[in-house]
């Protein structure tokens, strides 16, 4: 997955000295780019389901931005940051104004993305809860309802949906459908963003905004298309390996009875090789608002959690220039580095794009790649087993 751009855009992004660099700040259809003195840094993560904001301090010497004060509905105007080359641009960030602060001859705007709307609306109430029962709902059905029926985003069921990446949602739904993962839920006034956070955590999936669209993904096998970086386009790379994140025995509580307040099922998945190598690392996942309806559905999560956290995986931070701009969350990357050598394939799970300098930092992760076969050498006794 990547931005839908032309080959010349790609060429410019990878160029050492690209021509016709364009940065735009739009409020509605009006271009206020010339007022921007310092462009913001845009940060995204696959698991950060909350409004992301950027702030801009703009000169207001002649009252150019008093239109917010003069008519408060102007706060609802869509503000967009565009970046590109010549006439072709992408939109790394878009949102509506959360706050305007006038001070002296300047106006400071705080702009929040589409999650802002979802953080302002609720699903159900205590008196009239929204209930999903009958064991026939995929997690994807529930998040679709949450963001469209209750969150107010577009419910167009095609790729012309302006708010939700429908193609990605279809793939997301297909994953749960193929694995026959069914859930029930009962929401009594949770904010839409809270519902999304619960579903994200309980399904170990990715929910984020890019190109001003909500994207749902459940990462699987590494794609065949890998973005490869090397010493010619990497400023720096650092790798961390964190023992704290490990889970090799996952409990999942399922089949919640809303009358008794008790879970009826507990499943367990244990990765014995990891336990032998690193010691027991246990975790329990349960939620009384959103739960799996049967053992097999719950086991789906338990197995996924131990696969993604059963070893201390590499988590690199790759610092590049604009050649990293088009690597979106979920894309796979590898680095040929003179110090670390050839890397594994990692998945980009977050990034920070500094629109002021063109610097892109990618936060990748080895854990969210599912390989067809993974030999766990920790299960081998030693060299004598290999007959060496």
């Amino acid at each position, binding site marked *: 997955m990547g931005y839908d751009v032309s080959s010349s855009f790609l060429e410019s992004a990878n160029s050492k*000295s690209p021509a016709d660099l364009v940065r735009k700040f739009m409020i509605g259809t009006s271009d206020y780019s010339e007022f921007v003195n310092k462009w913001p840094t845009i940060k995204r993560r696959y698991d950060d389901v909350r409004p992301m904001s950027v702030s801009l301090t703009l000169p207001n010497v002649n009252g150019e931005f008093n239109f917010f004060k003069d008519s408060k509905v102007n706060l609802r105007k869509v503000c967009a940051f565009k970046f590109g080359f010549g006439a072709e641009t992408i939109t790394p960030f878009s949102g509506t104004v959360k706050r305007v602060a006038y001070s002296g001859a300047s106006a400071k705007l705080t702009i929040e993305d589409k999650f802002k709307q979802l953080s302002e609306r609720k699903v159900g109430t205590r008196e009239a809860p929204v209930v999903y029962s009958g064991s026939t709902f995929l997690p994807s059905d529930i998040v679709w309802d949450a963001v469209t029926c209750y969150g107010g985003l577009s419910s167009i069921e095609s790729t012309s949906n302006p708010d939700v990446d429908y193609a990605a949602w279809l793939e997301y739904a297909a994953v749960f459908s193929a694995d026959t993962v069914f859930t029930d839920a009962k929401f009594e006034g949770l904010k839409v963003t809270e519902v999304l956070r619960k579903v994200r955590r309980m399904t170990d999936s990715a929910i984020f905004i890019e190109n001003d669209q909500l994207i749902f993904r459940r990462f699987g096998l590494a794609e065949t298309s890998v973005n490869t970086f090397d*010493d*010619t386009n990497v*400023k720096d790379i650092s790798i961390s390996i964190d023992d704290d994140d490990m889970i090799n025995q996952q409990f999942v509580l399922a089949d919640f009875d809303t009358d008794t307040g008790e879970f009826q099922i507990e499943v367990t998945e244990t990765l014995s090789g990891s336990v032998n190598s690193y010691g027991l690392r246990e975790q329990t996942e349960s939620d009384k608002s959103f739960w799996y309806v049967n053992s097999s559905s719950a086991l789906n999560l338990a197995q996924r959690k131990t696969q993604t956290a059963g070893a201390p995986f590499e988590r690199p931070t790759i610092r590049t*220039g604009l050649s990293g701009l088009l690597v979106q969350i979920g894309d796979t990357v590898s680095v040929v580095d*003179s110090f670390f050598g050839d890397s594994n394939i990692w998945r980009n799970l977050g990034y920070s794009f500094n629109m*002021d300098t*063109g610097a892109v930092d990618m936060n990748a992760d080895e854990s969210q790649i599912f390989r067809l076969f993974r030999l766990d050498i920790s299960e081998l006794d030693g060299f004598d087993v290999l007959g060496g």
Partner: protein
Amino acid sequence: MPFRLFIDSATGVTLEPEWDFARPDEKIESTFRTRSAARFVYKWAGFGRTKFSLNFVDSATQCSINSWWGGNQELLFMEVGGTDVSSVQITNAKKPMAAFNKPYQDLYKGKIELESY
């Protein structure tokens, strides 16, 4: 070589810059080097700068220049007889024509700094 600093065809002054005339244009860009020492440069914008000294400027010209400086007047600048016209402002930190040319008390000297906008 004379230059014209003016608002329109009716309002302007003709200047004779000294030999320190220079055009130190600037770029606004970000640069970094990769691990293989490859240099990447992102040029966001550029602007023109012109600097020169003036001597023996009459009081009318001196008043015009200082007034335009004080009001951040948008001006045009070109070489007399030339075709290249720049849109500029006088960007000196302090009043540009503020000193007499010894021994004259009606002729002034100073340094002009112009930047495109």
